[in-house]
């Protein structure tokens, strides 16, 4: 039995410690925000927060997590009461098919926990490991800029101002 701290509460799963976290989130805990994309750490759709850092949950064995806190998009807000980054993504209509968006949101959240005043380049570097095949990157970046401003910060040299 593996015990995990997910979205602020204790979750248990009877799995092999080498099982990737993503499978446990989706298969055992019913948390479906993080997506299976490539399973190889190439696309970022499975990104969740481990403490405050973004990780590919498809490549993170649950046995390695210990008492570190796992946060998925379900832990950042709900449909009725979306969190700050989620509100920014909604405002900018950053999702097309939406498959990459939970990973994008987790990645943006990690960036803004690290700094609310990143440079444009820092923001792009932080978001780069997540791919969007619909091509809504410009809207996604606008959403991250908006979320930074909403947290009292902002991109210090934005390529586009937040309007």
């Amino acid at each position: 039995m593996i015990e995990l701290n997910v979205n602020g509460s204790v979750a248990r799963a009877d799995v092999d410690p080498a099982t990737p976290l993503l499978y446990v989130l989706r298969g055992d805990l019913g948390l479906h925000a993080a997506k299976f994309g490539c399973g190889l750490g190439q696309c970022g759709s499975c990104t969740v927060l481990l403490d405050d850092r973004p990780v590919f949950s498809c490549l993170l064995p649950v046995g390695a997590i210990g008492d570190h806190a796992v946060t998925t998009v379900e832990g950042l807000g709900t449909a009725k009461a979306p969190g700050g980054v989620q509100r920014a993504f909604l405002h900018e209509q950053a999702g097309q098919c939406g498959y990459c968006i939970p990973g994008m949101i987790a990645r943006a959240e990690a960036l803004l926990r690290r700094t609310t005043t990143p440079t444009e380049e820092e923001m792009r570097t932080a978001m780069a490991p997540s791919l969007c095949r619909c091509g809504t990157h410009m809207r996604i970046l606008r959403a991250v800029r908006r979320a930074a401003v909403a947290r009292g910060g902002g991109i210090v040299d934005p390529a586009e101002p937040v309007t």
Partner: protein
Amino acid sequence: MTRARFLKFAGVALTIAVAALGLLLVIAHRSAIASVERPDPRSFDPALVARGANLARIGNCVSCHQAGGGRPYAGGYPIKTPFGTIYGSNITPHPDAGIGRWSRAAFARALLEGVGRDGSHLYPAFPYTHYAGVTDGDVDALYAFLMTRPAVRATPPANDLIPPLGFRPLLAGWKLLFFHPAPIRTDISQPAEWNRGRYLGETLAHCSACHSPRGLLQQEKRGAGAYDGGWSGGWYAPPINARSPAVRAWTPERLETYLRTGLSRHHAAAAGPMGPVTYNLARANTADVRALARYYAWRMRDAPAAGVEPPLPDRRALAQRQYPSGARLYEGACATCHESGAPMIVAGRPVLPLGTPLHEDNPRDTIQIILQGLRPPVDASGPYMPAYADAFTDKQIAEIVGYLKSRHGSGPAWKDLQKEVAKAREEGR
């Protein structure tokens, strides 16, 4: 000692110190070279500019003379040394921020002697110890190339060095000890291609700046210790002589492929500071890269793998017993890409047992690749290795590294892995 004798002794010591400082200042003195109007870019022969462009790529100049996110040749890249940080200078032809007012003679003196236009000595982080052998024609070409770049108004941060190293005349002392340029003469017993490779490799490409060990004052080991392996930017540059740890021979053909693509399916992908080197060589003259490959393959001609390529036993069960938690982490995090039949292998990435880092005498490169990931530096399409710095603790990475070395590695066992991971994190920042 009586008071009088002490005073006499102190007086003599002070006199010697003042005389030494005076002598240093005399030795260190170089005159400024008069500034010129920025030469008209159109005054340079396009063929000469193209030749300079090729040489700049072979020299990998842009790696130190461009900051992350900055403009090419505008400087600002931090070079970390044990004595502090030195920032690459702006070598665009901007008249104030760059070298726009430098005459050809001033440029040549900087490149060949390590003295700036104003007469101040340059830090040997700028590898003039290698450039001293550059031919006059190649100096002309590099000058023509740089003077025709867009002029960028950008001033790199001031160097941050421990006192008294900000006092540049001291560098004259360093040069007296360690800077003894000798011309590179053609070795008529070797083919022209080998000689070309040696000229480029020992001068502009300055390969030994990373691949040779350095002494206390950061001077490169020459002679017998040359190319015995060195350190750069938190990574280990393995030996590229008879001590090469590779388990497959570096033939000239394989080395040429590696230098031009950043990938050798028999060895490894170019990682860390070697990435930009291959990125630039991919854009350089093919014959020149072939010459470099020929010369450095020759330097590795007595390496173990050049004689017999050893078998690569898979000690999976042993490694699992020694590193049970490393084995579990490997299964969950690494196996999908690194076991046989995985998409990475199908895409031509080297298999783990061949990876040179696992055969090196220290774990640094293996650790950095896990921490930072690895993106093929030349052709970014296809699979890449993601970074694990945020996913795993030092202890967990140490477990994985121990497992990998035990299962696939060769050479002496690595020690204190957890400390090594912490150090790699710190130095790779």
